[in-house]
């Protein structure tokens, strides 16, 4: 049976993490240093050593997850420990510094560490939340994204074929909508979601046009389409009137099917992006943290 990495071995690592946090907090509370609490007291050095060891171990996860033949524990277990002990690090490092913050390399390390942990926590959230939505979105499409993409290409081809039979202008319109439909164009578009609006606009126009057998009330607000003083949409609508009703219906069905499919592809891309984009921050910042940590430790002992 599948067990989430969060619940691995009945939350074993959550318990270790809470124990570590509890021990640190209690020791900190009982600790009565002769100076304001800081990283230089015996507890400060102890927590600092534990924290640094944790950081190196947490970074090692990046190596361990690539060692496919390793028998050193299950990767699920490693991930579970990575998540829970990473969270404990937040408490340990805060107590290590004794809440002393300033504009220096030491606080830089702390801030980087906090950012890494926050991005990791967001990552845990995406891994817990999006897979279910992803599967739901891909229902009856199989699990391979290429299937969906082939389907879109196929719909495009069929649209163009019908449009070509309906005349050059309709073909141009459909061609335009196909060219303007971008999938996975930019990071932000993927993150924010949304389909190419032109496809949607066009479908709506056509729908209203055919449904009421009237000319569209408003033209598509794109200057390119008004070349030669002629309103393209009106022309297309007129073409619809003269073309066979079967062809119009078939084209509309195809466009609707494509619209639905593109929405699903976009969602698919968006979920995948959200599930992976946090790692850009998490991994890059953790490497930055490694540098800041080295600078922190060396500088402290350099000017002892």
């Amino acid at each position, binding site marked *: 049976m599948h067990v989430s990495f969060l619940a691995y071995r009945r939350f074993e690592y959550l318990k270790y993490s809470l124990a570590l946090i509890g021990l640190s907090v209690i020791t900190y509370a009982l600790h009565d240093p002769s100076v304001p609490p800081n990283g230089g007291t015996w507890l400060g050095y102890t927590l600092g050593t534990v924290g640094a060891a944790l950081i190196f171990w947490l970074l090692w996860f990046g190596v361990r997850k690539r060692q496919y033949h390793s028998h050193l524990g299950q990767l699920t277990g490693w991930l579970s420990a990575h998540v829970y002990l990473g969270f404990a690090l937040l408490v340990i490092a805060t107590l290590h510094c004794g809440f002393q913050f300033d504009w220096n390399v030491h606080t*830089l390390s702390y801030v980087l560490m906090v950012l890494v942990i926050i991005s990791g926590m967001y990552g845990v959230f995406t891994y817990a939340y999006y897979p279910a939505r992803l599967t739901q979105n891909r229902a009856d499409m199989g699990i391979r994204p290429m299937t969906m993409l082939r389907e879109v290409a196929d719909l495009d081809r069929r649209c163009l*074929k019908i449009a070509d039979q309906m005349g050059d202008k309709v073909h141009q319109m459909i061609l335009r909508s196909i060219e303007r439909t971008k999938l996975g164009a*930019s990071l932000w578009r993927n993150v924010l979601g949304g389909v190419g609006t032109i496809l949607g606009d066009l479908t709506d126009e056509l729908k209203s046009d055919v449904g009421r057998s009237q000319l569209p009330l408003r033209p598509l607000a794109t200057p390119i389409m008004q070349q030669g003083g002629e309103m393209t949409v009106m022309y297309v609508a007129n073409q619809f009137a003269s073309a066979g009703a079967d062809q119009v219906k078939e084209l509309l069905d195809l466009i609707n099917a494509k619209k639905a499919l593109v929405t699903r592809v976009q969602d*698919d891309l968006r979920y995948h992006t959200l599930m992976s984009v946090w790692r850009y921050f998490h991994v890059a910042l953790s490497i*930055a943290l490694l540098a800041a940590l080295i600078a922190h430790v060396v500088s402290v002992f350099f*000017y002892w």
Partner: protein
Amino acid sequence: MRCLLRTVNRRRKGVVVYQDRELSGDPLSIGRAAGQDLYLPDLRVALHHANIVSSGADKFLIQSTVPSGIRHNEKTVQSALLEVGDRIGIGNCQITVAPAGGGYDLVLEVKHGTQDNDLERAPLSPGGNRAPARLSLRAWAWLLFGSILVLFLVVPIAGFTIPALGNFLRSIAPPISDSAWDPGSLNRGHRFFGDDCNACHRSAFFSVRNDACLACHKSAPHHVDIQAFPLPSLTEGRCASCHKEHHGAEWFVRQDEDLCLDCHEEIKSVAEDSKLLDVPGNIGEGHPELRATLITHAAGKEQSKRVSLDRKAELKERSNLYFPHKTHLDRQGIISPDGEVVLSCASCHAPDPGGRRMAPIHFEEHCHRCHKLTFEFDDPRREVPHGNAPAVLEALKSYYALRTLEGAYLESDAAASPPSRQRPGERASTMLRREAMDRAASQAEVVGKELFEYRACATCHQVHAVAEPFTRWEIKPVRIAEAWFPKARFDHEQHKTIACKNCHAAARSEESEDVLVPGIQKCETCHGGLGAESRVESTCVSCHGFHVSKKYAMDGTVIRATAEKRRNRRESTPPPRDF
């Protein structure tokens, strides 16, 4: 325009075949319809999709005639000026602009797409489930890693190795100098050189050494006489074991009691000859009773002695004065030349200019208003001088000699010896003058005796009469300790919101030998040790100093110069007390 159209066909096994065709005319049309100059048989190409027109000398413009536009270098546009190397995409066809030559104005390479790569073309980007490829995770991570390591470690270390560079960096870019290592602001007193880390941190990977501190604090007194008590903890200790830096403006000295109690809890275990008491704990935790420093007189010289406040029998200040506080503080008032007055503490005691201690009492300022040194009933303005016993007799003699010579009656023996009267201008006889002098001397002695032994002087002072060779009186020297707790950091200014009587039981004191200071219990009503609740948190160093040796400085040298200076000053200036 003459245009060479080179169609690139890929055959099986990777063989590439070129097909050249020459076109001429302006514009050149591109489309799926028959009769187009460049025929592209793809459904994603409109019948007439675009034109290439010449636009000035050797410049060509490609213009789309349909709303879907063309892809110019992977960007969808309506028209674009063609440059060598440009890639134009229409449908599944890729047109590359090659360098012109061979008599052609324009050379275009045309690649027709296959069914397979058609599928991979835009708008379908199968790599969509990866984050965009232009952000390379590794490059981004190593860039951050490298910059942080260089800016915050390599550059500051370089600044340490090359001091000129270090100073330069601190002045122009503190964040990438060793200032970025500064873990917290310095104590207020050290801020003036705070930018220069190397004022204290002189060698890499070594903790701050004492010589860095002694560079400025050479003359700071040591803790004890290090010859008598050469304890390693004192002679080899680090300044930085007590003085902690980088904890903010107010924080500098360790406050924990253990630091002091390590030795002082059982002082004999570290210094056998010490005269100090063991201190089981801080105030409220077993602090021993306070000991007042009193002046004693033995073997012809003044000495000081510390007497515990709970040893009442010994706790007497032999000041050689008579001064009952109780009488002076009578709430009904006391008789003064100006009538009855009610005195308070502040009538006589005022803080010194620093506010820390009380200023000394002076006869002229504080006593004289009531205690007049008059001696002649019918001459109440005439007084003997204060502070100089021989001068008193001299003054009396002079006064009575003058009176006698002026022919005034001396009341006391007016009946026994009638005065001799003389006419003005007539010189008195030798016998008469001697008689007058004798009379004045004896009168001075009578009055002097009265003043010294019964009235003015004896009111306050202990007087010692010396009969031989002729009668004279000596006032015993006043011995009041300048401060009963000379080493304590007690500050009256900080306690001024509390009434004097809360600590000083003066209103009940009938003897001048009473030492009117409260014991440690009184302190403990308000003060407690570190972490004490509902008490003022006070540590050892709140009241006691560490650097208190009068003999040795922190660098181990003898504070000779200072001691000599102090001695000279004492000899050259009159004593502060002048009773």
